[in-house]
């Protein structure tokens, strides 16, 4: 597994998906609120993706499409992908979607590049033109993957401007950034 130690990969796999159990399961308590220590066949619940995938592969549970890829979201993306608040739906929209697509709904595979193509253009455009990032609502709509693109675009623009102005070439190491100035 090449992403074994990757934080984003782990977090993306923690997204919940609705599942229906195809087998009865003993000795587990999926829902903390109930006292019973088993799962009946046909019962429905939501599981983190890493668990749902393994159970799905062993025919113990079937996965259905989670809310962040439902019809409503798809319609909104088709209307104007750049304005959809994907972060509140799923902070790892693309990662999660590409993992999910082969397991439950192949059309997600078409949705992702469509959404990304439109949003990518918008991200690059906004990253260069928004002067006050705090005042803009746009960054709050972005998923984690898009945020890193947005920040990369902004920092490269800032570096370019600094280079043109011939600014200072010495930079503090980023790990020392938090140091307080000694009181004089």
């Amino acid at each position, binding site marked *: 597994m090449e992403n*074994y*130690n*990757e*934080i*984003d990969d*782990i*977090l993306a796999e*923690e997204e919940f998906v609705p599942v229906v159990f195809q*087998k*009865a*399961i*003993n*000795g*587990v308590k*999926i829902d*903390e609120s109930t006292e019973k220590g*088993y799962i009946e066949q046909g019962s429905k619940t939501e599981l*983190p993706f*890493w*668990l749902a995938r*393994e*159970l799905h592969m*062993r025919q*113990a549970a079937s996965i259905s499409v989670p809310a962040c890829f439902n019809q409503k979201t798809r319609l909104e993306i088709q209307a104007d992908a750049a304005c959809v608040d994907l972060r509140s739906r799923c902070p790892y929209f693309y990662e999660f979607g590409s993992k999910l697509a082969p397991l439950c709904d192949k059309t997600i595979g078409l949705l992702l590049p469509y959404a990304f193509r439109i949003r990518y253009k918008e991200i690059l455009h906004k990253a260069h033109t928004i002067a006050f990032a705090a005042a803009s609502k746009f960054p709050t709509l972005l998923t984690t993957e898009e945020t890193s693109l947005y920040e990369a675009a902004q920092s490269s623009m800032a570096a370019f401007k600094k*280079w*043109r102005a*011939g600014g200072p*070439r*010495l930079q503090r*190491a*980023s*790990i*020392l*950034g*938090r*140091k307080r100035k000694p009181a004089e």
Partner: protein
Amino acid sequence: MYARKGYELVKDLANGEKGQLQPFNEDLFNQVVDQCTQHYLELQALIRKMQEESVDVRETRNSDHYGALIHHLSLIRNKRCLMAYVHNRAEVIQNFAWKVGLELLELPEEIQEKLSPSEKNYFGKHSSALQTYMAEVGIDLNVVKSLSFTRNIDLMHSEFQTNNSCCNKKIIKIVWKIYCVANGYNLSLQIVNVPFF
């Protein structure tokens, strides 16, 4: 919920700023380990139950088997979270050697407080391995952080008649190396033997 503690641990790491080190979360780390033990005990109990009912543990796919499977998967998941936590911190700590200093005592106290004892040990061994290597090869690889070296590069801007604004740092570094070799300067002594002062 299953393997939830591992997720919390990774989340804790992800919430910190990139390149910044959070204090080692000993408490949560131990909770994850405890949860692993818990999963292991429940897994064992289910397997034992299957053995008592004298069913074939390898082949049978009954409800006990799937219960054991879930505990097994949760264990593996928690292990992955623990590994990722330690691994990603270790990467940040390794970078200290280049960015701050090769000795543990060179690190500012704020950073030292955030390391766990085994991480301090790791840092010490990592930097001593680096130092041994550099001594063997005879090159101080850690020139980038040296302020005086950067100043030398600045001086070389004018020396080589290059325009400040279009100078690539990498090119300067290579030119500097060639300059040192050509003039017989030992690369590791370059800060002392500055030709411009």
